[in-house]
């Protein structure tokens, strides 16, 4: 009985070999557009390199126990390699230890895990992204006026680093006054309501720095409904933000390079299997999407194809 099972398992795994490598891709949720483009990037890279991708996404967004049990699944199913975004950088360390114990090569993408052995880390630098995006706004404001910061989820790593970047840009521009710094929890409706409330207190708001694009669009809706004018920037470079930039409603969006992160993470995983050299770490530099440079980003992620590996690591 056992023998039959074993033979079947071996046959299955050889069949998999013939189809190319199997890459398990772990993302945090099905709701954030960022992870959607990362998954598409991973698929595009796998297609180019003849591999297949299996996605693992918690049904409850960012659920620690769900990702943990998905890791246990994967440790049994044994894909050739794993591309991994931890739902929580600290809480998933024991999970990563399980992957390491199973001897499956794993690439850490987007959110840096607090521990465990990884082939590489591929990410974007939230601090410089926050800094460059805020600098772009403050420059457009001529280095003077009143701004508001719309924060994401207070305790999240991305928010802490982005806000640190915003604050640094404000330090460089002493002519700009920070009126308020309030949480919109990365949520569109909350950002809209917070902005409506802030407009009651502050008659003149010249600029808003939002920690993501969903909140930036909420802020824009609030200002438009109240017939108020102001420049708004966000972060992520979502399709919606690019349309708003094109229409002149939004000033700019910091590019989080989500698609590229998905591409490169998967490429690195496959190259590791092929025993090709891989970088220990690639952190995509901050770039700001604005009216003057939005064209290359103005494509649906489904239609995008990964850039060449050499171009990605050059960045």
């Amino acid at each position, binding site marked *: 009985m056992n023998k039959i099972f074993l033979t079947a398992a071996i046959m299955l795994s050889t069949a998999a070999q013939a189809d190319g490598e199997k890459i398990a891709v772990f993302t945090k949720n099905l709701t954030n557009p960022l992870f959607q483009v990362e998954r598409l990037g991973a698929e595009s890279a796998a297609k180019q390199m003849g591999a297949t991708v299996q996605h693992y996404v918690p049904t409850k967004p960012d659920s620690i126990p769900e990702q943990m049990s998905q890791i246990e699944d994967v440790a049994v199913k044994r894909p050739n390699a794993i591309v991994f975004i931890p739902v929580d950088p600290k809480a998933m360390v024991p999970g990563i230890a399980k992957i390491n114990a199973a001897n499956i090569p794993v690439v850490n993408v987007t959110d840096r895990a607090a521990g465990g052995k990884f082939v590489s880390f591929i990410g974007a630098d939230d601090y410089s992204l926050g800094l460059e995006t805020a600098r772009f706004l403050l420059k457009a404001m001529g280095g003077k006026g009143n701004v508001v910061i719309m924060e994401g989820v207070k305790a999240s790593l991305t928010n802490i680093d982005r806000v640190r970047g915003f604050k640094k840009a404000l330090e460089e521009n002493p002519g700009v006054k920070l009126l308020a*710094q309030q949480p919109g929890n990365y949520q569109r409706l909350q950002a*809209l309501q917070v902005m409506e409330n802030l407009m*009651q207190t502050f008659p003149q708001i010249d600029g808003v720095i939002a920690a993501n694009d969903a909140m930036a669009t909420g802020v824009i809706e609030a200002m438009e409904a109240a017939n108020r004018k102001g420049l708004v920037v966000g972060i992520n470079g979502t399709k919606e933000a690019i349309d708003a930039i094109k229409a002149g409603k939004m000033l700019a969006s910091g590019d989080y390079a989500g698609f590229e992160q998905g591409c490169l993470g998967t490429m690195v995983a496959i190259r590791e299997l092929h025993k090709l050299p891989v970088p220990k770490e690639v952190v995509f530099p901050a770039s700001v999407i604005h009216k003057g440079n939005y064209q290359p980003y103005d494509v649906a992620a489904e239609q995008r194809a990964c850039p060449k590996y050499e171009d990605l690591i050059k960045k």
Partner: protein
Amino acid sequence: MSFALSKPGRFIGALTADLKTIAYRLAAAMVICVILTFASDAFLTTNNLLNVLRQASLLFLLASGLTLVILTAGLDLSVGANIGLSACIAASVMKLSGSALLGAASGVGVGMCIGVANGLLVALMRMPPFIATYGMLWVVHGITFWYMAGTTIYGFPSAFRALGSGYFLGVPIPVYLMFVFLTLGAFFAQRTTYGQEIYAIGANRESARLSGVPIARRLILVYTVSGAMAGLASLVFLARMNSAEGDIGEAFTLPAIAAVLIGGTSLFGGVGTVSGTLVGALILTLVLNGMNLLTLDASWQPLVTGVIVILAVFLDTLTRKRAEARK
């Protein structure tokens, strides 16, 4: 109560009967208002008060249907997920057909179908409401995530957007919707046989059954109304935000239940009012408004929210306890 009252008189009568039961909650909301008036110059202005009412309207629309469910000693945990799916379906129908009316109808329709499904599970399958609607929450979230796949639908006709961001005589349209449904809800609960039967089911299901209340049909009715109100709330959301994405509902479930309970409706059924739910929604909205007006540090906001919610209900429970002790 005289039967000679004119029709509008009967509506107002229902409303005041409703309001009497929630005097203490109303007092708590007033106290918050008085404190904010002294703390911020921006609070007691027409603009800001209309702003608070508009922000509360979405939560109230959602929570008003839920109130009827909780009055039967039931629960609807799927209202948040319902808003998410109804909004996404309404948005894509509107995009595909180009018709705001068709989009709106499909939004309310989807919400209603989810409500009917909940009602059938609870009334006919005799499932505990918590479990039936908790299961429904995941089913609906799952369908929404699969359907949207992380995308966002945005940009709707301005005629439709007026529902959320428009004004009539200087008052935001959602505020009218809120007061229309407040009056309808209070009248339905206080002055119709249906309403009385719903209270009876919540107070004592067995004696309601013995006195001839068609329990299954009334239960299906309240879950359907709750679903339809979630569908309507999703339209107000769409019209205000001009966009729909898969995760919009998640933030609503607990605040909606909280609004009902802060408003004095009992989780055990039979006690509570729709006006109470309005006050509950207002208290929750005032807290956020106040914290923003005072630009309270983000780190303190969750703590302050919690303390105010507890204090708002404290006075009421205290007086009720005293009254019971006196008996």
